[in-house]
């Protein structure tokens, strides 16, 4: 298996060109304040109406050209850290690496006469904390993939999901994490639709899986868990259900199991509608969204009601654990998955994961993570967790949210919105945020 590596990410939209990253790098690497010698270089674009900033920094390429054109074997990619290292004792100062790199990631340092490049400061890059705008991030999610990659994949190798859907990612990660001593319940929806219940008499998972009705998922799973408990087997009871199956017709059994404190992990994959059966609206579909049952025409302009906030309703069941999560924030998701599994050993754990739907929401299949990230960055979706002991708190607070239009314009289902509808949604985002904030405050005082 190949390894995943940490990386330094640059968001030009957040950069204001202050140059603090270059100063930090020059200080860390050359002991001077000479930003010309920094290994990260920010360039301002002159003459443009809106000033933007550009970056030159080693990409630590997977297939590095600088290494292939080095005649002296002085450059090498480290298989563990992913960093392309430069060996001064082998370098002959020929500069061919600078001709090989298309990204200006390795360049002449006129202070030394040698080439210099980013080495990520041994995994602790000085530039990142120096950025006052959060335009530079050190993305370390790779650690998760390297660890999880060694665990057994309990989902079928082939599947029938839509292109670009993040549910496969979610299924594989979740099943790997819960492990083989698991019984999985997947009611009608995308999760069985893409292959978890299997085909032609074989299951799509390497753990026992069953396909309850929409109405009785939590009840059936509770019975199975209790039977295993009675015969003395410690089995992880896991449900992966869609938002329709959880918030609409399946809500009664979900609420009942939560109220009784059944020992299970109930994961909802929320794609804000009945996407598997032709994109009908659910009670989780947001206001204004197009679905096949909230069409856009002369008389109607998408859904006319606001979405139900199912995770907040679950909080009011005082479950052992309730959290919202997003696949754009895998470290956060993993942290919550671990806590939910632990909580499900003694009570009811509920995990609500947002799942942008390439097919039903109408956006290109390569943008799933970007849409998921924009949902959080605009506060359209808030990431938080709750336990009865600690109350509710944000895990990825967004104090300076982007306008909700940044999220809405990322997909086709909101394309028809009138300014009034956009205003309604923006107000709702602020209202929801205040509502959850009040719950966090409440937790602090009491």
């Amino acid at each position, binding site marked *: 298996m190949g390894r995943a590596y940490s990386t330094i990410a640059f968001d030009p939209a957040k950069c204001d060109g202050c140059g603090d990253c270059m100063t930090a790098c020059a200080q860390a690497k050359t002991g001077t304040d000479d930003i010309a010698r920094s290994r990260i270089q920010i360039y301002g674009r002159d003459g443009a109406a809106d000033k933007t900033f550009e970056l030159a920094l080693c990409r630590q390429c997977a297939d590095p050209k600088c290494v292939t054109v080095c*005649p002296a074997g002085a450059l090498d990619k480290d298989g563990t850290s992913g960093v392309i290292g430069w060996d001064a004792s082998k370098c002959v100062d020929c500069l*061919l690496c600078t001709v090989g790199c298309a990204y200006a990631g390795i360049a002449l340092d006129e202070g030394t*006469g040698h080439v210099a490049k980013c080495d990520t400061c041994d995994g602790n890059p000085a530039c990142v904390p120096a950025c006052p705008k959060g335009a530079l991030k050190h993305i370390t999610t790779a650690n998760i993939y390297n660890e999880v990659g060694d665990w057994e994949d309990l989902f079928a190798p082939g599947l029938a999901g839509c292109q670009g859907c993040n549910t496969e990612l979610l299924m594989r990660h979740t099943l790997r994490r819960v492990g083989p001593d698991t019984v999985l319940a997947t009611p009608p929806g995308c999760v069985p639709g893409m292959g978890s219940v299997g085909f032609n008499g074989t299951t799509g998972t390497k753990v026992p899986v069953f396909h309850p009705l929409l109405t009785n998922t939590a009840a059936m799973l509770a019975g199975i868990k209790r039977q295993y408990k009675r015969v003395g087997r410690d089995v992880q009871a896991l449900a992966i259900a869609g938002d329709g199956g959880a918030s609409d017709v399946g809500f009664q059994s979900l609420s009942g199991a939560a109220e009784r404190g059944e020992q299970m992990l109930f994961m909802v994959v929320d794609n804000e509608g009945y996407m598997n059966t032709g994109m009908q609206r659910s009670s989780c579909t947001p206001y204004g969204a197009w679905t096949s049952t909230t069409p856009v025409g002369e008389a109607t302009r998408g859904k006319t009601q606001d979405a139900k906030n199912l995770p907040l309703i679950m909080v009011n069941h005082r479950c052992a654990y309730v959290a919202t999560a997003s696949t754009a924030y895998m470290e956060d998701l993993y942290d919550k998955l671990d806590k939910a599994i632990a909580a499900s050993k003694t009570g009811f754990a509920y995990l609500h994961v947002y799942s942008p739907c390439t097919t039903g929401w109408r956006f290109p299949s390569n943008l799933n993570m970007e849409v998921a990230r924009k949902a959080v960055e605009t506060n359209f979706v808030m990431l938080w967790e709750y336990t009865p002991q600690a109350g509710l708190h944000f895990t990825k607070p967004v104090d300076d949210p982007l306008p909700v239009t940044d999220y809405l314009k990322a997909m086709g289902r909101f394309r028809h919105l009138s300014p009034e509808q956009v205003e309604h949604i923006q107000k709702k985002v602020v209202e929801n945020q205040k509502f959850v904030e009040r719950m966090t405050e409440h937790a602090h005082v009491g």
Partner: protein
Amino acid sequence: MDRAIEHTKYLIAGSSHAALEAINAIRMHDAEGPITVVTRDSYLPYSPTVLPYVVSGKSAPARIFLRDDDFFARNKVSYRPESGLKALHADRNSVELADGSSVVYEKLLLATGASPAIPPIPGIDTVSYHVLRTLDDALKLRGAIAESKQAVVLGAGLVGMHAAENLVKAGASVTIVEMSDQLTSGYFDKVAADMIEQAFRDAGAKIMTGSRVVRLEPSAAGAKLTLENGTTLEADLLLVATGVKPNMGYLNGSGVEHAQGILVDDRMQTTAANVWAAGDCAQARGFFTGTKVMNAILPDATIQGRVAGMAMAGDPGLKDYAGGVPLNTYHFFGRHAISVGSSTVPEGGEMVTRFDEKTGRYLKAIFAPDGCLTGIFGVNEFFDGGVMAQLILRRIDLTPLRERFVANPLAVGREIMSQTWR
């Protein structure tokens, strides 16, 4: 077929940059297919480009190798040194090797590189001289330089110039004899060459450009050279560095078409079935000319090796070779020169130069009539050669940015890079 004859799926003749990139490309797509590398060299892979630094002592000979035995083991490659290609029988997919054995292949890559071109000077066979293309050459030359008092370097290409600098630094009196009227022609223009010449003269070297050697004969010192104008030179060390010629003697009768080099198409395939060629021995499309040219430089060898490897493995991600772009860097006496692209000004195009006498910074940029960069050359003026090559290959119109670009190609090149191929 004879059981004793070795069969392999991918046979690669040669072991330097083009060959190594082809191995990478094949293994990206085909993790298992047997690969056999046969090479005339007796060492692990190394780059001819590093050899001047072995001569100077900057590179330790034991530390120049680009791969180790473990690499070949991990990649399931059989590495066979001292077994250069002797004859190719493309009609029956087999080769004869210098060690007398034969190998039958499914796909063959000719990455056999080049050897020094020895000029037909009368008497050259009667004197002993050095060349610099293999590690053994380098080790011999390194020993000789330490002993030399008066050396003559024939040819002022990059190999000759590197060696001349080493000789000067080792304390020898050095004369560089070059046929054309400037040093490093083909790499750098007259202005840059004059700067290089001045650096060598300042260090005590004698430069004789526009000079042709008409006779060589043995002498007490070693060799006596007679120039066209009657001047004679004595040398205790003679280095012949008048260019290279592709190694393709094994092609005789094989049916593989060749001119200056082995002719290949945009996927590095030769005119014979199942035979590809890449690197210094190949003659492939030039980016600027459209005709097939020799572009015997390291970066192009890696690109061609990759294209050939992908084609041999049937990798569907393969894109046609974009054509060779000249790319050279040269370090001399602590200064540097970089050349990217063509030095010919296209018809209707424009050449812009600037020179700062105080700092010794020289820059020349050439633009096509459509505003695209076709060449950029600098002495003591650092810019990102890789970014410049992309500007040329992507044919980006620089008209709106030209003034700023010429003033600061480093910053403006990076801006365009960041915006265009972020």
